[in-house]
């Protein structure tokens, strides 16, 4: 299966977004007939790298060699037409069309009268699916099929046109064991046909089961690369980790006063959360670590009432409560800073003052009338204490920098006097200066007796700010570490579930 020439070669690929270097001088190659796995933590640059190969992003510097020819930029259309197919997690099928129509969409075969050659399309689709070992009813709309099957149809679509390279981005996120087996069978057959496969996954067992070579990315750098036999699980994790963390910056301390602020018991949400129980005390910062897809954001959404729950109980200061909507949660003093501030945290066209006031107004109104003078004063107070720049409350939020936008979201929670703040990736896309301001505010809130649940994929952040760290995987809490004992390696080994039997 090894030809001497790689089918794709990346040389010194570098990519930055708004000043943050996301990929740094990456050299990478992919051979026909191999399964090359790409691993790394959240934010290590994996998805950026595959987007550069598939043409969705253009690299800032470096070159790509494909089938012997060298290019600086690729486009998605060109990539598709020339045999590079990517199957993302977001399924790009048309739910109302059936399987055969979806597989051939955009490249239908026409008969001599100019009509769509249905018979040929159905036959070829069936052949492809048979080759993949799949039995699917070709006539049902794709939207009615199981997600796992939809993913397979996505792969079949990549095979409709001749593919030389297939990129799979976390394909097994929603697969059951039997479906994973089917997928691997398909991959093995594709290998035999000489197709090169780039496989990204957090599930290390899969990497060892199906991979030929593996490459580890960390913080945008290629750390190690080699045949799969050269690694074992813990050496892989070690390669993903290993940055210098200044432990003297650790702010966390074990919680001494144990006034329980909030407790979750047996939280269940179908398919997503499988029994979570934990508690958080007043004046405590609890970090929640885990890989993408572990269910952290989903859990947060349940805690503030955005998503409904299928089972479990909440206790606020010992009293059982029901949280059915964010409105209810806010009235109880629970607020959330969502993962995507632009899509879920702020109304971009409105002014900063208005945005901060949205949560505040809900709490301080009397019979619907808002004491605006008080609101304005409070808003101005917050703006200056959080040091939001520019400090004019009339500026539209969309014109502010990411860091300041995040501060506005935080100001909202503080304005509403939340006692439990749930922060989902609080410093993602935030510059260094704003970052340290946000950390200072968090420590201050902690000192004031508030509780903070901090979901984060940023290792230094979790290790320095949290008093306690919970690690989630596959919808459950699989580990807990105190700030003293926590190290990056330990966190990751829980996250990758290495200690599972």
């Amino acid at each position, binding site marked *: 299966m090894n030809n001497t020439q790689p089918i794709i070669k990346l040389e010194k690929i570098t990519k930055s977004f708004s000043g943050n270097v996301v990929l740094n001088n990456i050299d990478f190659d992919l051979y026909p007939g191999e399964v090359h796995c790409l691993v790394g933590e959240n934010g290590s640059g994996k998805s950026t790298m595959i987007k550069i190969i598939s043409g969705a992003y253009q690299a800032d510097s470096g070159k790509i060699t494909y089938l012997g020819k060298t290019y600086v930029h690729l486009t998605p*259309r060109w990539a598709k037409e020339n045999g590079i197919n990517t199957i993302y997690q977001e399924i*790009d099928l*048309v739910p109302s*069309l059936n399987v055969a129509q979806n597989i051939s969409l955009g490249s*239908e075969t026409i008969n001599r009268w100019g009509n769509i050659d249905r018979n040929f399309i159905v036959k070829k689709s069936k052949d492809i699916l048979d080759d993949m070992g799949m039995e699917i009813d070709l006539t049902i709309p794709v939207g009615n*099929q199981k997600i796992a099957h939809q993913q397979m149809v996505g792969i079949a*679509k990549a095979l409709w046109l001749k593919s030389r390279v297939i990129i799979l981005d976390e394909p097994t996120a929603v697969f059951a064991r039997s479906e994973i087996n089917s997928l691997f069978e398909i991959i093995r057959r594709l290998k035999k046909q000489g197709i090169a496969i780039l496989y990204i996954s957090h599930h290390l067992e899969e990497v060892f089961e199906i991979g030929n070579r593996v490459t580890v990315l960390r913080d945008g750098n290629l750390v190690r690369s080699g045949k799969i036999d050269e690694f074992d699980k813990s050496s892989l994790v070690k390669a993903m980790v290993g940055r210098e963390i200044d432990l003297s910056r650790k702010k966390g301390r074990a919680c001494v006063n144990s006034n329980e602020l909030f407790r979750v018991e047996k939280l269940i949400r179908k398919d997503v959360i499988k029994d979570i129980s934990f508690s958080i005390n007043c004046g405590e910062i609890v970090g929640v670590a885990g890989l993408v897809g572990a269910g952290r954001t989903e859990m947060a959404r349940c805690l503030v009432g955005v998503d409904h729950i299928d089972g479990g109980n909440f206790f606020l200061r010992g009293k059982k409560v029901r949280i059915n909507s964010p409105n209810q949660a806010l009235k109880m003093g629970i607020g959330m800073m969502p993962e995507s501030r632009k899509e879920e945290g702020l109304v971009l066209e409105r002014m900063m003052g208005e945005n901060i006031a949205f949560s505040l107004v809900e709490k301080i109104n009397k019979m619907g009338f808002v004491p605006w003078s008080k609101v304005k004063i409070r808003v101005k107070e917050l703006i200056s204490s959080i040091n939001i720049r520019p400090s004019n409350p009339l500026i539209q939020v969309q014109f502010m920098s990411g860091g300041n936008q995040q501060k506005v979201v935080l100001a909202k929670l503080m304005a509403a006097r939340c006692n439990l703040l749930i922060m989902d990736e609080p410093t993602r896309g935030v510059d260094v200066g704003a970052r340290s301001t946000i950390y200072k505010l968090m420590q201050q809130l902690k000192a004031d007796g508030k509780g903070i649940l901090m979901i984060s994929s940023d290792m230094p952040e979790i290790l320095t700010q949290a008093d306690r760290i919970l690690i989630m995987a596959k919808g459950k809490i699989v580990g807990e570490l105190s700030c003293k004992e926590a190290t990056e390696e330990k966190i990751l080994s829980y996250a990758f579930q290495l200690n599972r039997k």
Partner: protein
Amino acid sequence: MKLNKIFNLFRAFFSSNSPLVVLILMIILSSLIFPNFLTRLNICAIVKQYSIIGFLALGQLLVLITGGIDLSQGSMVAFTSIVVAVLMEPCGIFISVTVAIISSTFLGFINGFLVSRTKIPPFVVTLGMLSIVRGLALTISNTKPISINNDIFIQFGKETVFNVPLIFIVWIIASIILHLYINRRKMGCYIYATGGSEESARLSGVNVRRVKLFVYTLCAFLAAIGGVIWAARLRSGSPIGGSGYELESIAAVLVGGGSLFGGVGSILGTLAGVLTFGVINSSLNMAGISPYWQGTLKGIIIIIAVVISQIRLLRRDRN
């Protein structure tokens, strides 16, 4: 065993062709209640009246499948009839009809252009066009209807072939052609794809812009034909005619299984939907119910149809 198979076949036929079933049931119901229902006179009347809506519904179906809507159809009917009426005397049948159809189709092209190239929602585009076209019709005709005296043309509206109205036959033929088209041609497949998931269609290489341009142009073309028929039947062009026709065509398409959310709908279902409305209309008239209640009925039917398609959508997404 065999009985089971037959039963399953029936069930499959019914569920995928429920508009047809509804139509048959309504016909049976009406003919039981009203002894005069199944007479040749009555059926001819229904068919002649609803053939025009029938043409509109065909065009509206295609637009709805792509997830859009066309509120300007009624105005196009009026506009076309006026152009035909104005040009009939000086230029004769052929030229007047051709010019009328071409100009209306061009207006539909503008609809398609605005929908595909700007962020203006389709219902606003066609709502604006409703005004624009209606105004044009009123201006050209000086707000007064224009009578048509061409006997050949008028005869076309009355002609029957083996006792079946010619207009109806033309409608059926158009339906067959469209049915073959959307099921056999690439563009037909792309129309469904655009409506089913515009983003996925675009990622798969479908030229979504061209699809939208096409359906709105075709829709206006069909509305123009409806306008020509209208002119023949009423022996005049009227600037205020056709008002509200687009709502009828939308309701007919929805009853026929189409959805405002796009992606679904069939020609057969639309035919059934149009005729169902014809039957309902006729029955209400026979029952002596005031025509004013029709608006309520239409409104409620639209709501129910949209709710049903919303439920179907939610059920599918839950998978």
